[in-house]
C-alpha cells in the first residue's frame, strides 16, 4: 500500500499530463498559425540561409506536420525550448537564470497577500453585515478593479518620486555592490513597492472568498457543537471554522496563480525587476520567438504545478474531498 500522499500526488500528476500536452500543442499551433514560414519565425528576422536550413532540419519543418509536432513536443517536455535569437544561449538556461528573481517577488507577494487577505476575510466574516464589513467589501472591489501596473506606477510617483522614500525600481542599488546582510537589506528595500503592487489583486481575491467561506462555515453544526462544548471564541473561529474555510482560500490561490503570474510580468516591467516578466517584454520587443514561446511554456508548467499543489493541499486538509 502506498501512503495516501503518494497516491494523491500520482493521481494529480496524471491529471496534469493532458494540461501540459495542451500547452505544448497550443504553442505549436500558434507558431504554425503565424503568417509566414515557421522556420523563419524560429530563426528571427534576416537569418543567414545556413541558420534557416539548420532550424528547418532540426525541427523537421520539411517533414509532415505530425512528425514536426512530435519533434516539438519531445523537445518541449525535456526542457529544450531552442536557442534565444538575441542572446544565442539556450532558452531554458536564460529562463532559469531569471526565474529566482520572479520566485522571490511573487512568493513574497503571495505570502503577504495570504496573511493579510485571510485576516481581513475572517475579520469581515466575524462581523458580517457591519459597517466594517461593507467597507472591506467596497475596498476589495476597488482592489481588483484597478490594473496592477497602474497601481505600481502610482506607488512609484508617490513613494519614490515625490517622497523619495523608496527606490524607483531594480533589484539592488546600481552603484553600490553590497555583500552579506547589507545586500539582503538592499534587495528587501527594493522589493517593498513591487510586492505591495502585486499583492493587491490576490489579497482582495483571498479576502473576498475567505469571507464567504467563513460565513458559510460559521453557520455549520460543528460550530454550534463547539459553542455548546464551551470552546473559546478564538478557538471556534480559527480551529473549527477556518480549518474548513481555508480549503476555499487555497483553491482561490491555486486558481488565481495564473493571473498573479501575468500580473508579475507587468509589475516587473514597471519596477524593472530582473525576472521572467522582463524576459517576456524583451522577447516581445526583439521578436525573439523561441524565448517568448519558451517563457510561455515554462510559466504555464509552473501554473499547472501550483494548481496541482493547491489541489493536493485541499485534499489533505479536508478528508471529505478524498474519494
Amino acid at each position, binding site marked *: 500500500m502506498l501512503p495516501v500522499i503518494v497516491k494523491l500526488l500520482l493521481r494529480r500528476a496524471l491529471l496534469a499530463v493532458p494540461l501540459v500536452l495542451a500547452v505544448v500543442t497550443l504553442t505549436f499551433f*500558434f507558431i504554425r498559425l*503565424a503568417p509566414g514560414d515557421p522556420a523563419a519565425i524560429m530563426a528571427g528576422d534576416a537569418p543567414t540561409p545556413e541558420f534557416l536550413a539548420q532550424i528547418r532540419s532540426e525541427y523537421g519543418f520539411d517533414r509532415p506536420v505530425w512528425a514536426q509536432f512530435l519533434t516539438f513536443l519531445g523537445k518541449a517536455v525535456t526542457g529544450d525550448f531552442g536557442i534565444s535569437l538575441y542572446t544565442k544561449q539556450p532558452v531554458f538556461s536564460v529562463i532559469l537564470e531569471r526565474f529566482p528573481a520572479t520566485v522571490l517577488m511573487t512568493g513574497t507577494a503571495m505570502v503577504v497577500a495570504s496573511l493579510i487577505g485571510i485576516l481581513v476575510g475572517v475579520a469581515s466574516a466575524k462581523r458580517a453585515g457591519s459597517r466594517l464589513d461593507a467597507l472591506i467589501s467596497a475596498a476589495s472591489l476597488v482592489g481588483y478593479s484597478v*490594473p496592477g501596473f497602474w497601481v505600481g506606477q502610482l506607488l512609484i*510617483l508617490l513613494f519614490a518620486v515625490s517622497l523619495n522614500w523608496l527606490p524607483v525600481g531594480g533589484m539592488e542599488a546600481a552603484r553600490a555592490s553590497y555583500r552579506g546582510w547589507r545586500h539582503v537589506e538592499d534587495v528587501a528595500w527594493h522589493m517593498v513597492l513591487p510586492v505591495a503592487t502585486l499583492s493587491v489583486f490576490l489579497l482582495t481575491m483571498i479576502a473576498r472568498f475567505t469571507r464567504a467561506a467563513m460565513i458559510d462555515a460559521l453557520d455549520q453544526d460543528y460550530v454550534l457543537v463547539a459553542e455548546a462544548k464551551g470552546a473559546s471564541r478564538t478557538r471556534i473561529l480559527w480551529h473549527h471554522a477556518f480549518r474548513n474555510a481555508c480549503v476555499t482560500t487555497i483553491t482561490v490561490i491555486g486558481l488565481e496563480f495564473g493571473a498573479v503570474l501575468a500580473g508579475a510580468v*507587468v509589475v516587473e516591467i514597471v519596477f524593472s525587476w530582473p525576472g521572467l516578466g522582463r524576459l517576456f517584454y524583451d522577447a516581445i520587443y526583439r521578436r525573439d520567438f523561441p524565448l517568448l514561446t519558451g517563457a510561455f511554456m515554462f510559466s504555464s508548467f509552473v501554473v499547472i504545478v501550483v494548481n496541482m499543489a493547491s489541489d493536493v493541499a485541499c485534499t489533505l486538509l479536508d478528508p471529505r474531498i478524498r474519494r
Partner: protein
Amino acid sequence: MKDAITVKPSPFAARPGWIARLSSGLASLRELQVSTVVGVGFVAIVCFGTLFAPLLTAADPLGLSKETLLAPGGAHPFGTDDLGRDVLARVLYGGRVSLSVGLFSAVLSLGLGMTIGMVAGFFGGALDEVLMRITEAFQILPKLLVAVVVVSLIGSGLANEILVIGLLSWPATARVIRGRVQVVRHEEFIAAAEMSGASWVRVLARHVTPNVLSFLLVSASLQVASAIMAESFLSFLGLGDPTHPSWGLLLQQGQLFLQQAWWLTTFPGIALAMTILGLNLMGDGLSGGRAGTRAARR
C-alpha cells in the same frame, strides 16, 4: 410586502413573455444600492466622454506640437506628452479604442460562453463532462500570457486583439450559464415543451434562453470589464495598435516618463480604473451583490 413574489407560479398558469420575465429580473433595479448607482455613474461619465470627445476638446489626439511635456493647465487641462500631443484628447479618444475592444471581445466571449454553457447544461452526460474539462483547462492556463504569445506571433492590431481576448474569455460565462441551465432544465415547462414535440433547438431557443438572459447581463458587464483590463495589459506590453492608442498604450508611454511627467500615467489610469470599477460595480449590483460574482468572470 414582498412575500407574494416568492410563490412559485403554477405550471398551468400562462407564462409571461420573455420581455416581462427579463423586466421582472430587472425589477430589483428599484432596490438599487448606492454602489450600483456609483458604478452606472462611472460608466456613464466614461461613455459620455469618449462618445462626445470632439465636443469636449478641440485638440487632435495624434497632432504633434512643439509644446512637449507641458504640465496640466491652461490650454491643456491634462498636459501634453513627449511629442506635444494633448493628453486630454488622447485619454478621450483612447477610451474609444479601449471600450470598443472591450465590447467586441465581450460579445464574442459571451456568444461562445453562452453556446457552450447551454449545450453542456442542457445535454449533460459525456458531452457536459468533456466541455467542462476543456473549460477548466482554459481557466487554469494563464490567459493573459497566452494572449501575449498569440498576438506577438499573429501580429498586433485591433481585430487580432479582439479575437484573442474573446476566444480566451468564454469559460466564465460558460460556467455560469451551464449552472443556470441545469436548474432550468428540470422545470416543468421544459418537460411540457419537449412532450409537445418541440425540437431541442426550439426548446433551447424559446424556453431556456429567456431564463438565462438576466444571468448573461451580469456576465456581460463583468466580461466587458475583464476584456478592457486584458486589452490594457496587451497594450502595456506594446502589443496594442500604435495607430489607435488605447489607455493601456498611454500608460506604457507614461511609464517611460514616470519621473518627469506624472500626468501621462495618472489621467489614463484614472479613466481605465473608473471604467473597470464602474462595470464591476454594475455587475455586482445586477447580480444582487451575491458573494463570489468573481466566479462569473473567470
